[in-house]
């Protein structure tokens, strides 16, 4: 209410003065700005668009015979209450935000989701809660190799736009960038990036961009499909990438037939309806969306949708198969406690945030070591050298998990990183571990020789370290808590 009153006072001010009319437009826009709780880039664009609208409208009204003051008043009043308009813009923006929240839930489950995907792929007998998957997200390792084969000369004054153009000019890759989308990540395409090197690889550049803008939703990411390199925000890729999976819904249908004595066709249709009505309805093709499809054939339900949707579909099917066999009311006739879809705990969220930071730090260290290797003949012996050389920020060596019991934050095998002729599979060769996370007994951020980073349980790390490709690596691991 208070905000609306302030809006009216601005409009009234316009009615009281003709000399200050242009300032009134600015006042209205300033007030609108304050009410518009959107990302900065959106706010600037919306303000500019409304200003342009007002200019056009005032001119038309003046041509129709109104004096400037009246025309200005009318144009502003047509826009309505600033608070209402700001609310309209906020609700117009809710479409992706809601999806971002969903993606957040997915990212929050990051490691779990990857493990789930792996489990899904290896499930031989599909059951309601664990679908068989036809296709999984493409492996990154081959793409990294391709990007590492594209080298270019980069000078510190080059902007992101110039660097990306230089990548395209190598004629080895076609590059697709949505600069408007990238701007929402905070990147300014035409400002100097400050990266330099005689032979910097495309992968190093993209990694640097990802590190600088590493927000879990709005951060910058890339995909390489064939020779087409696409650079965009993570949320855009997340919305685009879908997984086709097949669910065996026979057990659910049978329980419905036993319990409710309905027809097979009715039960089948009901399962499809429940899923498409309850789980992000807007995205289903049957509801006019274009993010997810569902077809049921002979007791098999095929779903082509983002991973986060699969998590919910699996949960709904589990509930359907369970619910029809178990009483839904308590002994006193009261509704039983709802079985809520599991959400990450605060501890899990905190661990996830720490893991993301650890992975980001490892990426930065890896990048700095690579640059050192190109610029120096002498081998690197400590992280301190990178900090003193200006390649890492002071404190970059500190783990988000705090110091390990022995006081050291990271262990990095620099020899392994610099040994470019290492034998075996680079993607399996461990060269860096967050020692503090290891000491806590939780999932560990691990850097591989090919530059990719994974979070993994300690048991998996141990398995990797004893594999032949890692025989030369003897990490000085702290004792576990």
């Amino acid at each position, binding site marked *: 209410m208070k905000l609306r009153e302030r809006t009216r006072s601005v409009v009234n001010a316009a009615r009281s003065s003709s000399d200050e009319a242009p300032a009134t437009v600015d006042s209205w826009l300033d007030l609108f700005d304050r009410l518009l709780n959107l990302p900065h880039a*959106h706010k600037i*664009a*919306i303000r*500019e*668009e*409304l*200003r*342009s*609208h007002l*200019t*056009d*409208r005032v001119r038309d009204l003046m041509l129709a015979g109104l004096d400037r003051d009246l025309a200005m008043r009318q144009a502003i009043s*047509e*826009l*309505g209450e600033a608070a*209402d*308009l700001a609310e*309209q*813009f906020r*609700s*117009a*923006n809710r*479409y*992706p935000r809601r999806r971002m929240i969903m993606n957040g839930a997915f990212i929050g489950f990051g490691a779990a989701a990857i493990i789930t995907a792996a489990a899904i792929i290896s499930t031989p007998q599909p059951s309601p809660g664990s679908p068989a998957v036809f296709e999984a997200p493409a492996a990154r390792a081959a793409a990294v190799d391709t990007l590492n084969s594209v080298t270019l000369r980069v000078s510190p004054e080059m902007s992101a736009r110039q660097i990306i153009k230089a990548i395209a000019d190598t004629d080895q890759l076609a590059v697709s960038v949505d600069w*408007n989308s990238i701007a929402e990540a905070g990147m300014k395409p035409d400002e100097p990036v400050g990266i330099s090197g005689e032979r910097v690889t495309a992968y190093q550049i993209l990694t640097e961009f990802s590190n600088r803008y590493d927000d879990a939703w709005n951060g910058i990411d890339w995909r390489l499909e064939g020779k087409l390199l696409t650079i965009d925000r993570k949320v855009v890729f997340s919305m685009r990438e879908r997984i086709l999976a097949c669910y065996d819904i026979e057990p659910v249908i049978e329980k419905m037939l036993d319990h409710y004595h309905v027809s097979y066709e009715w039960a089948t249709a009901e399962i499809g309806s429940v899923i498409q009505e309850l789980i992000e309805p807007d995205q289903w093709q049957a509801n*006019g969306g*274009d993010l997810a499809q569902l077809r049921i054939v002979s007791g098999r339900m095929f779903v082509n949708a983002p991973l986060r949707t699969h998590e919910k579909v699996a949960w709904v099917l589990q509930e359907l198969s369970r619910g029809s066999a178990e009483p839904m009311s308590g002994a006193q006739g009261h509704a039983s406690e709802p079985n809520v879809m599991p959400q990450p705990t605060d501890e899990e969220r905190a661990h996830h945030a720490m893991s993301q930071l650890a992975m980001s730090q490892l990426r930065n260290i890896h990048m700095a070591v690579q640059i050192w290797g190109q610029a120096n003949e002498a081998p690197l012996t400590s992280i301190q050298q990178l900090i003193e050389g200006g390649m890492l920020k002071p404190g970059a060596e500190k783990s988000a998990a705090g110091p390990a019991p022995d006081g050291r934050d990271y262990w990095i095998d620099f020899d392994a990183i610099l040994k470019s002729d290492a034998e075996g599979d680079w993607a399996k060769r461990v060269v860096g571990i967050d020692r503090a996370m290891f000491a806590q007994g939780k999932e560990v951020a691990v850097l591989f020789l090919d530059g990719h980073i994974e979070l993994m349980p300690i048991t998996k790390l141990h398995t990797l370290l004893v594999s032949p490709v890692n025989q030369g690596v003897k990490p000085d691991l702290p004792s576990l808590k």
Partner: protein
Amino acid sequence: MPTSDFVRQHADLLVLSVLADRPLYGYAISKEVAARTDGKIRLTPGVLYPLLHKLEVQKLLVASWDEVKSDTNVSEAGRKRKWYRLSAKGRKKLEQRIASHRSYQRLLEAFLPGTDSEPAT
């Protein structure tokens, strides 16, 4: 005269249809809609601009900024307009919206007096 609810419900269809012919900026879109309907439908700024924002975020529209060239007013030098055009996704969405609207219209015809249309099967 269509109600404001009607306009809100169909505003996306109106905007996508107008932009199917050529790129336009916001104020020009509202004038085009008014012109095509003899002034019977007016997209107010409070409906139009948030809708354009939404369609752009949904990637149904692609926007670009262009400096106003035709204005002779010196004080407006450097003023920019935001132009919108349909993306491929937007064109597909428009086709879906038209098809859906037509089939709904055919169904409705069967219930209206004085028509001999067959209901859609």
